[in-house]
């Protein structure tokens, strides 16, 4: 027997097992129930007949708000992270200590606890209302938690930039601040783009925790909206809205990760 034939024969049982599992799942599954519960036409619509179901609302309100909240939380978190990372690398012990405290504190608490504390604890403690409503409290919470995580990533990135870069910049007469802005940070950001994408995706999903702060109907993001739509509206009584939300989350996240790997490839050429 030829070697390749023999190899193919040993693969046969493997394929049979796979086929068996697939067949079992196929016959075991209640396809009608799945169709009615997760793919109800009232939600999914019939695009070929010009019916768009609940997609327009989910996209223009839910997905739009999810992206908006993520961008705010990521942008704010990144700015905070730069400050915290520089504090942790400061020659002044007090700054290092403060930076470390903030980072450790917000990394150690569950996001939902931070959201609740800011949304309900802070107004009681200071007898003060969030001017932008409790959704603002939730966003500040995401900024704090995201910033704490990203600060650690960024600090590692800054430390990964070779010391010779700083020396060269200082020798050219740049001040330490100018060196950081012009030479070190741009290289540090390039190094940490992959872990920062990770942080972006985590924040994107954490926006679904904002609901505990309470929000107006037009402030709802994807998950909260989908949750509400299981009990009211065209798809009430089914889980169709969750299927739709899941699909939208994928549509948002997958291109992003593709974009980042494209950026990484492009950057490799410049190295």
């Amino acid at each position: 027997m030829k070697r390749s034939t023999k190899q193919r024969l040993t693969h046969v049982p493997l394929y049979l097992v796979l086929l068996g599992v697939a067949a079992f799942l196929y016959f075991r599954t209640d396809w009608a129930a799945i169709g009615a519960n997760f793919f109800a036409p009232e939600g999914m619509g019939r695009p070929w007949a010009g019916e768009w179901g609940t997609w327009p609302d989910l996209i223009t309100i839910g997905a739009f708000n999810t992206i908006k909240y993520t961008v705010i939380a990521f942008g704010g978190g990144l700015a905070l992270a730069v400050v915290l990372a520089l504090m942790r690398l400061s020659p002044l012990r007090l700054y290092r200590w403060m930076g470390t405290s903030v980072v450790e504190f917000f990394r150690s608490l569950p996001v939902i606890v931070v959201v609740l504390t800011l949304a309900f604890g802070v107004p009681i403690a200071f007898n003060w209302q969030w001017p932008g409503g409790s959704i603002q409290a939730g966003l500040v919470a995401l900024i704090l938690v995201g910033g704490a995580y990203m600060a650690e990533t960024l600090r590692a990135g800054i430390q990964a930039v070779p010391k010779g870069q700083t020396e060269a910049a200082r020798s050219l007469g740049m001040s330490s601040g100018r060196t950081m802005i012009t030479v070190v940070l741009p290289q540090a950001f390039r190094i940490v783009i992959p872990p920062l994408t990770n942080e972006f995706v985590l924040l994107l999903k954490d926006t679904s925790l904002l609901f505990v702060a309470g929000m107006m109907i037009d402030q709802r993001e994807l998950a909260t909206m989908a949750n509400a739509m299981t009990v009211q509206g065209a798809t009430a009584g089914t889980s169709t809205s969750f299927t739709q939300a899941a699909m939208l989350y994928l549509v948002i996240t997958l291109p992003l990760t593709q974009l980042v790997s494209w950026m990484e490839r492009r950057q490799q050429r410049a190295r």
Partner: protein
Amino acid sequence: MKTDDTTVAAIEIRDLHKSFGKNEVLKGIDFHVDQGEVVCVIGPSGSGKSTLLRCVNRLEEPDSGQVVVEGIDITDPETDLDQVRTRIGIVFQQFNLFPHMTVLKNLVVSQRKVLKRSKAQAVEVARKNLAKVGLEGKEDAYPAHLSGGQQQRVAIARALSMDPDMMLFDEPTSALDPELVGDVLEVMRKLADEGMTMMVVTHEMGFAREVGDKLVFMDDGVIVEEGDPAEMLANPQHERTQAFLSKVL
């Protein structure tokens, strides 16, 4: 601040001490470089020659002693270090080009940010210096796409673009493949011919002999011997110099 007074030494170092932890690297160095002079510093690795060079613009903080550059004491905390540093060009063993910038940007950025030159002027100076090191046409390349020798020549052009009064070279050819050393030395020789004040820490004895005005031999944190390069290489006086030269020549 620039002085044309040739009676002031470019670099004047007095009784310089520097330790890393318990390891005393510089044990009381007296050293000077006159304006327009090319001084080569040789010695075994660990002798303190690179540390001495790095003390000249305070990349290393001296423990005690004085470093006076063109009459300005740079160990004085009142001295504007960034200002003095613009007048001292440094070329490193590992080039240290900024990898996220094109060659042109590498040459332009500190002219713009530190000297506040206009963009047009900075680009003009950059192009002039790129031509000087024989790399015209490489403006848009990234450092990673250049050979080691080309990178080092860009680094020289970058330092020259600040119009420094003196150039310090810290083993500029030690990280290069042997066939690329010549181009870099050629550029350095040209600079010396133009009258640039230079301090060169090197292992290139040929360069030291032909281009250097003075040769300094360091060992174990002290200057053992200094003098005319050709004379010293041919006829070293001190026993440690003889031992070192017999190994490298």
